């Protein structure tokens, strides 16, 4: 059988037509109600493979939808965060469920599904609009480095870029990209950025820029951990230096940011150990199910900061400080709950709403005193409790325990009467930060040992840096 050139060309043309026709077939579409088979938390906080509905994942083949735009291996360019548009690879099961066929696609789908639900949570707590965050800019496999090299096992919210960067995970637990609690924690940072940090202007931006360059959230080196809190008159005291108002307040605001974010992570995930699922050591320190410690005093914090001169160590310590607030707020949910349960969704949302409403007030406190006074660690308490619809007696008692002997009218919301035996005048004096700091600066530095802050009736107050990866 002989073939002419014309015959061959005709056959090629036919095949080419078939190829073009096949190429025009559409990829997967993310219609509302589409189900995806992904790794997802169960009601008790464990993670397993489940079918999860995502309503707004408009272009799954580009991992893009209404609430998040994902980039892979992003970099910083002229237009902010830039990177490759990811390719979403799915198979469709016989039941019509889309199954991510590679890990990048799996991560992107899980992150998007959490973002869709975090947007829902925002609306439930009254964060309307939210154009400051939605669609969230998220970088997968982000290459973020500090002086020690590329960061791993972390998630970073960058306030300047207004973007969430997820760096590679090399540990043996749940990848951070799949950890809903961690994603909620990072999402809260964008809320805090909007309501608090943005209003502080350059006072905060100076630090923010440093974080941006260094890549935030480092692990303290061993020598820092050893020298973290020494006793009075120790060798560390000789190395210690005075802490400025700016340094102290930056530490405080960062600690609040981290503590509130841990609370947000718990509210979203319902899992008090959500960090532990990905980062064992840090997760134990920040386990929200542990007993609540009394809030460290201003003096305790200053003492700790004097001995921790390196920014990395101070950064780690801020997480520990934040955990005090996170555990208090979890207990506050229980105290506000009619059923006295931390699982009471209505009480969880009530406290979350109060936190949202308290943020502008907290921002105002920092704005007025950021560079000129040592702001009290209790700065968030009154705005938070005052924003609750009604403060229960249990919440008032919880507040007493949390602030230890530092009871004052500046901390106490109107619904909480002063306990018997505490004169209002004495409380008011104690609340004056300027007087307390002034006495200390004049040589009255009679603070108790940071290791055992004896005035705390709940648990002795210590501030110990987190010893492993942070978020």
């Amino acid at each position, binding site marked *: *059988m*002989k*073939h002419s050139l014309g015959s*061959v060309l005709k*056959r*090629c043309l036919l*095949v*080419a037509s*078939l*190829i073009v026709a*096949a*190429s025009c*077939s*559409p*990829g997967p579409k993310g219609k509302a109600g589409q189900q995806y*088979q992904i*790794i997802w938390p169960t009601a008790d906080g464990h*993670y*397993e*493979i489940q079918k999860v509905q995502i309503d707004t994942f408009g272009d799954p*083949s580009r991992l893009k939808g209404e609430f998040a735009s994902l980039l*892979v*291996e992003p970099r910083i360019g002229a237009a902010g965060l830039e990177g*490759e*548009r*990811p*390719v979403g*690879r799915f*198979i*469709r*099961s*016989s039941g019509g*469920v889309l*199954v*991510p*066929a*590679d*890990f*990048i*696609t*799996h991560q992107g789908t899980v992150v998007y599904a959490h973002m869709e639900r975090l947007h829902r949570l925002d609306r439930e707590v009254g964060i309307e609009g939210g154009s400051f965050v939605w669609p969230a800019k998220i970088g*997968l*496999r982000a290459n973020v480095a500090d002086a020690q090299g590329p960061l791993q096992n972390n998630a970073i919210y960058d306030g300047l870029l207004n973007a969430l960067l997820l760096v*590679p*995970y*090399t*540990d*043996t*637990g*749940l*990848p951070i*990209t*799949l950890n809903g609690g961690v994603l909620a924690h990072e999402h809260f940072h964008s809320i805090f950025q909007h309501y608090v940090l943005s209003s502080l202007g350059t006072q905060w931006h100076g630090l923010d820029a440093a974080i941006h360059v260094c890549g935030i959230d480092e692990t303290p080196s061993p020598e820092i951990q050893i020298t973290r809190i020494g006793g009075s008159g120790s060798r560390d005291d000789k190395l210690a230096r005075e802490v400025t108002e700016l340094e102290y307040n930056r530490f405080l605001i960062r600690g609040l940011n981290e503590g509130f974010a841990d609370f947000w992570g718990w509210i979203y995930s319902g899992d008090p150990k959500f960090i532990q699922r*990905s980062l064992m050591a840090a997760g134990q320190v920040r386990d929200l199910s542990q007993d609540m410690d009394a809030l460290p005093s201003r003096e305790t914090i200053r003492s700790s900061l004097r001995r921790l001169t390196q920014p990395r160590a101070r950064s780690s310590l801020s997480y520990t400080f934040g955990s005090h607030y996170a555990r208090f707020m979890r207990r506050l949910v229980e105290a506000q709950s009619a059923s006295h349960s931390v699982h009471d969704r209505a009480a969880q949302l009530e406290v979350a709403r109060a936190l949202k409403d308290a943020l502008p007030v907290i921002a105002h406190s920092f704005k007025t005193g950021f560079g000129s006074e040592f702001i009290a660690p209790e700065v968030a308490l009154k705005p938070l409790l005052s924003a609750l619809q009604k403060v229960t007696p249990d919440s008032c008692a919880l507040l007493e325990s949390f602030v230890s002997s530092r009871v004052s009218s500046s901390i106490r919301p109107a619904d909480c009467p002063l306990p018997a035996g505490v004169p209002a005048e004495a409380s008011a004096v104690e609340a004056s930060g300027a007087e307390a700091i002034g006495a200390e600066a004049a040589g009255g530095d009679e603070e108790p040992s940071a290791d055992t802050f004896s005035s705390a009736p709940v648990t002795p107050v210590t501030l110990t840096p987190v010893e492993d990866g942070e978020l």
Partner: protein
Amino acid sequence: MIRRLLFLFITFVSVALLLAADAFAQPMVAVGGGLVLEQEGRSKKLETRVPLVLRGGWSFSEFDGFVEYQTFGTTDGEGYVSVHRRHHGWLGFARLKLPPVNEKLIPFLGAGAGLHFESVRTKIAAQSVETDGSLRASAAIATGVMLTNARGFDVSLDLRLVTSDGFQPNPTFGATLALGARF
């Protein structure tokens, strides 16, 4: 599982037809490896897959007709999570032999059409779920050369473009190198 049985059945039928071929055609089989350039995660970077290639069919004087099966797998993950994907593709291929360069080296043009599907196994700790994707149509064009000898063995190398709505990029570029025998 049903689809795998279907593919095994088609393989069985193909072999049976090989054995029953008439005098006008020589049964042929080939085994080899390939190269498939796929996108994964990032649109501008291509990842290399190395599929196993199996062929069975008939060789006529002017063209070859055969069925080709290709399979490859990929695994990726972090922590105690992994995603394993396996591709199964089946193409009916016609290969038109062009005038030989010499008595051993024969260039050819080829075109084919067929089906493929992918299965995904997702693992988290001890839990593992495997899902088969739906069957999809695919088509291919190819060009290459075949080195033959008088004892009925040949080595063929082809470059190809394969298209399907499930491929990324679409079409996907690939190559195969196969050692064949004619009976």
